[in-house]
Structure formats: structure tokens, C-alpha cells
């Protein structure tokens, strides 16, 4: 009896595809996000509001305390302060918040940073920011993608299979990276 390997390939392709769908979507979404990193920040959003605490006097710690008091910030949220220039004082707060004021006139900004929901997480996975165990998870996923490619390419036979119209699609797909590589080295 002839061994039906295509049947196994279809089964592999189907079931590995089910298992990989979440990561394919996550990595695809992240890929779109980080491809356009020059145009937007795929991980964080920043907001800023103008503040005016009035001219500051005293030592740097005293001025920092005044900023915190005038902006009605919980002193427990203060991480530290830093004099950037002769006139610019920065007060660092929890969660990456920052008050930056001009010592001479008290005008400045209160900046807030927030993670982009979903994007931050999928980018961390896609770019392997986690390191450690996730490196091996990503390795398994990479092998799964190779298996999906091979089984997907070969599981059909006839006119719709690799030897039919499939070869033209494969060659077309192969041309894309080859053209890219020629572009890189030209």
C-alpha cells in the first residue's frame, strides 16, 4: 500500500497552524508596528501638559520640593531630581512621569509616558526583549514556521499543487527576497 505522506503533511499543517495562529498574529502585528518605527513610537505614548509653578528659589532640593508641592504631587511618587542646565530643573516621578521647569519663571511641562496596550506586549515578544526561556519558545515557533512552509507548499498535488500553478507562486515569492538582496548589494 502506498504511503500517503501528503495526508500527514495536511494534518501537520492544520494542527501546527492552529497552535501557531496566536503568535503569527502577534508577530505580524508587531512587524507592522516596528517597521514604521521612524514614524511613530510602537511601544509608548507620551503626553505633555504645560505647568507654571512660579519662579523658584532656594537650593535645588528646595526648588524640587516646591515643584512637587505646587503641582500637588504625592511626595512619595518622587524618584529624584536633576539640574539639566543653569535654568532647567527636572523632577522625576513614578512611572516615568517628569516635571521639567524653568527655574527663572516656573514655566514648564509635566510629561507622562504610557505603554501602548497590546503593542508593547507583542513587540516585547517579537523582539525577544524577555530573553531567557522566551528565546527557546521563539526557536520552536521559528521551526514551526519552517514546517508550515514546507507542508503548506507540498500538501496539495495536481494543478493546484507545487508542480502545477504552485511553482509560479513559489518562484514569485522567491523573487521578492532576491530582488531585495540585489538592491542591498547594488
Amino acid at each position: 500500500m502506498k504511503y500517503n505522506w501528503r495526508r500527514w503533511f495536511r494534518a501537520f499543517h492544520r494542527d501546527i497552524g492552529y497552535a501557531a495562529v496566536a503568535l503569527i498574529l502577534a508577530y505580524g502585528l508587531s512587524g507592522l508596528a516596528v517597521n514604521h518605527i521612524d514614524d511613530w513610537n510602537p511601544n509608548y505614548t507620551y503626553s505633555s501638559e504645560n505647568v507654571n509653578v512660579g519662579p523658584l528659589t532656594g537650593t535645588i532640593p528646595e526648588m524640587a520640593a516646591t515643584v512637587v508641592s505646587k503641582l500637588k504631587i504625592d511626595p512619595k511618587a518622587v524618584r529624584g531630581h536633576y539640574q539639566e542646565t543653569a535654568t532647567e530643573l527636572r523632577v522625576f516621578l513614578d512611572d516615568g512621569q517628569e516635571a521639567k521647569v524653568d527655574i527663572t519663571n516656573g514655566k514648564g511641562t509635566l510629561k507622562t509616558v504610557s505603554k501602548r496596550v497590546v503593542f508593547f506586549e507583542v513587540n516585547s515578544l517579537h523582539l525577544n526583549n524577555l530573553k531567557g526561556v522566551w528565546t527557546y519558545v521563539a526557536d520552536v515557533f521559528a521551526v514551526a514556521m519552517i514546517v508550515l512552509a514546507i507542508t503548506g507548499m507540498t500538501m496539495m498535488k495536481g494543478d493546484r499543487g507545487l508542480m502545477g500553478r504552485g511553482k509560479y507562486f513559489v518562484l514569485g515569492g522567491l523573487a521578492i527576497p532576491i530582488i531585495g538582496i540585489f538592491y542591498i548589494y547594488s
Partner: protein
Amino acid sequence: MRRALILVVLLAAACDKGPPTSASSNAAAAATAPAAPAASAPAAPKGETFGAGVKLTSSTPIDTILAEPKKFAGQTVRVEGMVTDVCPKRGCWFEMAGEKPGQKLRFKVTDGEMTFPAEAKGRKAVAEGVVAVKELSLEESKEYAKYQAEEYKLPYDPAKVTEPMSIVRIDGTGAVFVN
């Protein structure tokens, strides 16, 4: 005589490894002993660890490095200070405050090697890496100033860059953000 302007922040024309520095190109041959008096510091900082963490047991003050950067070029040092800025998009660098106003030292890693969170500003960092010093031409200095202005969303006036810059940074191997 050319007067170098010591800039504590460092470049990375994009957020990659940045332009090669004399020290980074010789990193493999880098010495490991800090040549300056070490500041007191806890031997093993506890907190969020990045990369290889911190192995040296004593820190070199940032001010000391910035005062004589060429003396430290190519040496592996441990430094510590408050995080004042983090690479906003890729998290591939952060800056630490020195003792004096305006003094900062950038800790830079290759993109993806370590990713520092944008919310880390104000936290204490203990970091280890190789001191790199890069002398820029006037033209490179203008390019660098332009990049910096874009990164910090500040106005850029090339006419204000009149002297070649010298840039000092740490090519990082590991860091700990202390809890």
C-alpha cells in the same frame, strides 16, 4: 588649537550601535580595571538586571570619567547614577546623571541586546561597560547635534556648532536598575 567639547551624551545616528568609537573598536582588548579612585558602592546591586548584569565590585564616579575620558578609553568600568533619559523608541540607551549639573553619561547597547524601559527615568542605575571616546569632525558634530535635536525635539541651529565635539559613552555589557 582644536578645543574639544566634551559631550556626555552619545550618539547613534540611528539607534544602532552608533558610529564606531576608538574604544568600541578595541573593546575586545579592553582593560578591566578602573584606573580612577573607586567610589563606595554595594558589591552586588539588587534589582532589574539587563544583559550580563554588573560584575565589578566598585564604581568609578561619572565625574571622574568625564574629567579625563581618554584616560579611561577602552577600560571596563562600573558606574552608577540616576537615570535621566532613556532611548524613547528602542530602549537601546539610557543616560545617567553625574554629580554636577548637566553632567550625563550615556550607556549604549546594540539594538535588541538589552531593552531599557522608558519608565526608568529617576531610578538608580548601576551599569558596566567599556568607556568609548569618539572625536568628531566639525561636520560630524553638526550631524550629531542635528540628530540630538531631532531626538529631543529641540530646535537645531547648525551655526551654533562651531567646534568639533568629543563624545564619551559606555558601550554597555550589563546594568541593574536598583529597586
